[in-house]
């Protein structure tokens, strides 16, 4: 069955560049507001193209300037046919190409200019995903006392107001902003600064949460349906393209504008106000500090019609850390943000010692520094395929800050409609970003990082809990009264197998 699902997608992709059957309004009850509105410019560029007069042959789509303005994909365009005879390999390359298109679209300037043509060093500029009209930070969705959030409004904590300005990005520190998944510890750069993490979502995802009251614990308890975020789909005959739910998780390192001046055209940077809300979120605060942050990691999760387990793309800065082979060969390219080549005795990928809670300086309390090495977790063919795509796209972005970012891989469901493997048989099986899953890199089932296997365990805060559609975002909801009272069992939480009773047709 697995093969036929993908062949169906492949046929659509090959014949009409991913135009997929879709009933407009299928996600919109009659009379309800459309939280997943039509998108005019879905990017439907496939990674390969057919060759004239030879239906069995395909060639790679040129990686040229046209891709810089081709827009964000609403849905993957993938095929079992491609550059190699291995169907899995062709699908993987299609997803990886989709990831690069997504990265370029989201990191293009918010003002509409082409990526890499901004006014800052390295052609940098505030990106689309940093614009509150396009993406919203999680901290501005899950508000104190479960208050209802409002799309587009900027929330400036009192402590940050004296430092605020029109270009400042506000990052609210909670534990998830400095502690890695499963509370495995902070990441400390070679200058002794904490890495900072942030989570954001697009408007269809926000609206689903907002319209269903999922921004509070009580609201999640009251919501008796299954959590089913809107899906992206490509346009087709009589069918509008729609973006669906998209969420991001990014990682930053602190850059000193003076001491790190030579790095400023190597990183995408933001002028940030780091807000310490005080207990229980942070030990210190309320307080606010101004920092220049450089982007070091970038996750994008996107729910699509033929990937209801979402598509998981992950990028990182090329100077974060060496990989295992580079370490073995001593083939270093310093400076690294999270690795010291002159410290062979430093324990690798090890959590630093307590205490972990960051002080206002964002400086770690001791001389410990994270000694990060990128662990090999991908099959050789995926590594080679991704490296080839990275060469093409990084060359396309040469001369800009964005040439310093690389795709690690894309995880996607190889059997999205399975009722047996609810996580969709993720391909590749493991995937981690060295700045966002530093301490869970590897190839050990369950223990090592797998986007879908991990997020497949995410639940609501209701009683009984129910699957939250591959996002932990709902677990950040607060109680409306400030303190949570006794929960009322939600007897209507009857989950269909794998969270979707009927696969898309």
């Amino acid at each position, binding site marked *: 069955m697995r093969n036929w699902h993908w062949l169906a997608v492949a046929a659509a992709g090959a014949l009409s560049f991913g135009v997929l059957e879709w009933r407009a309004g299928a996600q919109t009850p009659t009379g309800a507001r459309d939280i997943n509105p039509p998108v005019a410019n879905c990017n439907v560029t496939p990674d390969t193209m057919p060759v004239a007069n030879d239906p069995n042959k395909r060639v790679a789509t040129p990686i040229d300037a046209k891709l810089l303005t081709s827009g964000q994909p609403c849905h993957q365009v993938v095929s079992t046919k491609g550059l*190699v005879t291995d169907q899995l390999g062709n699908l993987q390359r299609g997803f990886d190409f989709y990831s690069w298109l997504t990265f370029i679209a989201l990191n293009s300037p918010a003002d509409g200019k082409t990526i890499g043509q901004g006014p800052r060093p390295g052609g940098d500029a505030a990106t689309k995903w940093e614009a509150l009209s396009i993406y919203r930070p999680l901290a501005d969705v899950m508000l104190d006392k479960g208050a209802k959030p409002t799309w587009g409004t900027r929330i400036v904590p009192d402590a940050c107001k004296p430092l605020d300005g029109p270009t400042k990005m506000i990052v609210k520190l909670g534990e998830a902003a400095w502690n890695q998944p499963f509370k495995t510890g902070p990441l400390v750069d070679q200058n002794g600064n904490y890495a900072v993490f942030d989570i954001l979502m697009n408007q269809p995802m926000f609206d689903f949460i907002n319209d269903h009251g999922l921004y509070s614990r009580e609201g999640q308890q009251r919501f008796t349906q299954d959590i089913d975020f809107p899906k992206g789909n490509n346009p087709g005959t009589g069918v509008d393209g729609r973006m669906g739910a998209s969420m991001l998780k990014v990682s930053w390192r602190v850059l000193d504008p003076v001491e790190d001046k030579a790095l400023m055209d190597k990183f995408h940077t933001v002028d940030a106000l780091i807000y310490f809300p005080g207990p229980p979120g942070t030990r210190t605060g309320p307080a606010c500090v101004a920092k220049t942050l450089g982007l070091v990691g970038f996750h994008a999760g996107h729910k699509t019609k033929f990937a209801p387990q979402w598509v998981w793309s992950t990028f990182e800065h090329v100077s974060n850390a060496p990989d295992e082979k580079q370490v073995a060969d001593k083939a270093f390219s310093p400076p690294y943000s999270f690795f010291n080549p002159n410290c062979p005795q430093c324990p690798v990928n090890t959590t630093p010692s307590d205490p972990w809670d960051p002080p206002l300086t964002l400086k770690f309390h001791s001389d410990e520094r994270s000694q990060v090495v990128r662990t090999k977790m991908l099959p050789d063919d995926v590594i080679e395929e991704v490296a080839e795509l990275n060469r093409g796209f990084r060359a396309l972005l040469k001369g800009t800050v964005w040439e310093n970012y690389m795709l690690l891989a894309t995880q996607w469901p190889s059997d999205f409609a399975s009722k*047996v493997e609810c996580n969709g048989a993720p391909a590749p099986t493991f995937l981690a970003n060295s700045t966002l899953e530093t301490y869970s890199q590897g190839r050990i089932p369950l223990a090592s990082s797998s986007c879908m296997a991990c997020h497949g365990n995410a639940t609501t805060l209701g009683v*009984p809990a129910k699957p939250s559609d591959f996002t932990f975002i709902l677990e950040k909801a607060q109680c409306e009264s400030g303190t949570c009272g006794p929960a009322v069992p939600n007897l209507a939480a009857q989950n269909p197998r794998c*969270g979707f009773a009927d696969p898309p047709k």
Partner: protein
Amino acid sequence: MTDFTRRKMLGATVGTMAGAVAAAGSIEPALADDAVDLDLFVKVSVALTGVAEAKLAPTVDPIKVKLVYFKQAKSDPGFAGLMDIVHNAQSPAAAAQSIMTSADPGIKFLGRSIILAWYLGAWYPPQVLNRPPPSKPVPPDKIISDTAYTQGWTWSIAQSHPMGYSDLRFGHWSDPPLPLDTLIKA
């Protein structure tokens, strides 16, 4: 009856397998002949286990546990004889029947080892399985790999999941198990 000969299989499989063979790293078969043998190994495994090929070794298969079992079985001295039977049989079912009733214990018990590998993710050497009674529970030589452990078919056939690992969704324990046919048939 399907003609199951090596020659037919060669033409049908070399083309589709070449990419995987070239691409997949150290656990992949290195030669085209291995690719043919791998495909035949999967087909006879289907007959030996009763699990559909689409489940046992999907075409789009990121896990590729078949390669792990193939490599393990190939390391046994009886493998060449077992594959001779497979190559010359009229069908996978006929091959499986010949293996399980072979007069050669090295082949007969290798067939059992292969079944146990697919079911339990563990390798029970044919020589150990062939020990005379009084029989005690036979300890496996090894768990073939961490992947093999999670992919053992005994879990699905028991309509359950491995201890410490599950691809089922949160709350599945409150639902009736999936029908067996859903788990093992295409």
